[in-house]
């Protein structure tokens, strides 16, 4: 039991930090530009596939740097030549633009790398068990993922709290128009923030690629969870996104490792109901409903706190 708790906590924090790597970019972009980037998970996927391709050519470590830069450059270009054009047509058009973009990116990735998973391996330098707790080997690569996401998290915190550009971004979180009135080049800041945000998502993609499955549907699988994170945390709230990321990360990993079901708790259902839909609910295990946990959480939060956990803005 203790083993399960320790391992699941580690995995949960890891998944949560990965989610936050993406959710942070998404939140800052949303706060500044007012548009929820539907294609954010697609940049995560692009990061994973770029990382895979570049690590084949020059190795994993250069890929860890180059792939996010590349994805960030694409992100900046999308903002400069796409979103800025659409901006005058309102937020719905912007959201739809990123929706179409997500669709197109998935198609392009499918054309180039195919529909089946690619063989993105853990680099040999990190392919060993880091430590053993209760007879379970914990892979070093997962520790590396955790370290990278924590380092970036601290880096983000320092940039946001201690630098001039961080000051402007922070100001834009709450008073986006005032920042423009103060004479900052808002267009360039937007492009920069969009580029950095998508690059962060791509970093998450490169480090998650070898550990999870690198496949053309990974954006479609993760995207909705990402949006749940930002809505549950409160749209536009960075601390809220952090809290919700960890919450959903832990919730999902703990659910996956649990085997309980109603049948397990209250005994098997009487045979009369065996063929009805009630038996599905009765026999389903917690592990099986793990994928829908975030959405259940979403519904609960919306019922009792429509603004999100730490949200203040009504959009």
């Amino acid at each position, binding site marked *: 039991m203790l083993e399960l708790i320790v391992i699941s906590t580690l995995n949960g924090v890891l998944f949560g930090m990965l989610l936050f790597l993406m959710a942070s970019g998404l939140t800052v972009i949303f706060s500044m530009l007012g548009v*929820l980037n539907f294609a954010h998970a697609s940049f995560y996927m692009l990061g994973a596939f770029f990382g895979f391709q570049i690590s084949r050519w020059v190795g994993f470590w250069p890929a860890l740097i180059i792939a996010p830069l590349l994805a960030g450059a694409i992100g900046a270009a999308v903002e400069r030549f796409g979103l800025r054009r659409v901006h005058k047509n309102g937020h719905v058009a912007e*959201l*739809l633009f990123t*929706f179409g973009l997500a669709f*197109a990116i998935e198609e392009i990735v499918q054309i180039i790398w195919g529909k089946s998973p690619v063989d993105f391996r853990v680099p040999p330098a990190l392919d060993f068990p880091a430590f053993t707790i209760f007879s379970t080997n914990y892979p070093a690569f997962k520790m590396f993922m955790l370290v990278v996401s924590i380092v970036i998290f601290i880096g983000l915190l320092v940039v946001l709290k201690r630098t001039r550009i961080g000051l402007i971004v922070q100001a834009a979180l709450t008073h986006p128009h005032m920042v423009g009135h103060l004479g900052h080049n808002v267009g360039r800041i937007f492009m920069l923030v969009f580029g950095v945000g998508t690059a962060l998502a791509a970093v998450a993609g490169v480090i998650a690629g070898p550990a999870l499955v690198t496949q053309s549907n990974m954006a479609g699988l993760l995207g909705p969870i990402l949006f749940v994170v930002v809505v549950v945390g409160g*749209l536009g709230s960075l601390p809220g996104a952090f809290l919700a990321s960890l919450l959903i990360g832990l919730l999902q990993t703990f659910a996956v490792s649990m085997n309980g079901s109603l049948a397990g708790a209250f005994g098997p259902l009487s045979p009369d109901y065996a063929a009805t839909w009630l038996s599905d609910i009765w026999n389903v295990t917690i592990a099986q409903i793990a994928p829908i946990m975030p*959405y259940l959480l979403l519904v609960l939060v*919306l019922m009792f706190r429509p603004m999100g956990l730490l949200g203040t803005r009504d*959009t």
Partner: protein
Amino acid sequence: MSDLATSVAPPLPAAADKIKFYGIWLAVIVALLVLPRVFTSGGSLTTFSLIGISIIFALSYNILLGQTGMLSFGHAVYYGLGGFLAIHAINIVVRNKLAIPLPLIPLIGGVTGLLFAALLGWVSTRRSGTAFAMISLGLAELVASSALILRTFFGGEAGVSANRTKVYRLFDWSFGPQTQIYYLVAAWTLLAIVAMYALTRTPLGRMCNAVRDNPERVQFVGYDPHIIRYLAFCFSGFFAGIAGALAAINFEIANSAYLGAVQSGTVLFATYIGGIGFFIGPIVGAIFVTILSLGLSDLTPVWQLYFGLIFIAVVMYAPGGLTGLLMMHRPLIRAGTLTRVLPSYAVAFVPTLAMITGLMLAIETVVHFTVNPGDDSHIKSFGIPFDAASPYIWTIAALLIVGGFVLARKSWTRVAHAWDEALGSAREKGFAA
């Protein structure tokens, strides 16, 4: 008091307007009746049925997006649940030999859509804008994933099937042949179009528009935007359920794809490409997108990419959709200044077409080398054979894209100037605001 009321009431429509109004509906009925006589093949009847279903679905979606300003990413939930309930209803009717004829089954789908919209809508319509969009996405994922868990009801991956010909027969219609299904779909499409058009003319329909444009002011007037959004959501779920039930009857099967994100995305594409600003927009979009997806999938393996690119192009360059583009020209036609724009259109058309051709050539070439790299390089796409390995093709593609782009930019600037001039003179004549 009564004085005021009479002066506020709108004037009764003139006879000519009445004839025009009812004439359009009459023309639609005649067209629906005549269509299967003109195009008799089974394939075209299936296409017409699919178009009818997607018209209802797209119009129901536009109650949300166009009329009330709610962008939903999960509208297929109500479509799919309507479809599932319809299939189960058919099975129950067949098993118990109930006297319910097939034409009434879509109503069961509609009521299902209404019930689930009433259930899920209360939570999701509390927020509008971006939050609503994300919530609709989350709820859609919730329902779609639950459908895979509740296997006995949703039939798992395979889905649930039924036999529509075994249902209680009225007037000896078996609903086996596609013609009879076509007439069923056509009748329901007409009913749904009339009902949804009527809905836009009711006070509720007007308040929906008000909520879309200025929810704060709606509150000051004394309405609750949440309630209005909720009502619109319920109506929309009802018609989506009808569309889903018709689809289930047409295919005689309902599976989890009905509920999925692809279905939600398709209806969004159809509605937006058609144009959300006019009632007829989603109808145009549904026809266009259905024909396009059926036609393109025969021509190229990567038709979904083209689909996505068309959607992005519409969002970027024609936010009013196809109908918006056409309606833009109405004041010019009335003022008779359209002829001033047409020459510049003709000039802009050539480089734009060149650029699109170049892009398509490049995409098809890249697709050849990535999707089936080992095959013969002499490929055929859109019915035109060419050699994907030849450097000439690559050069031509690059030239077309770059040259077309540069020239298209210049020529579209000229179009904009001509447009301003034509609209300016239309304004002088009093035909445009």
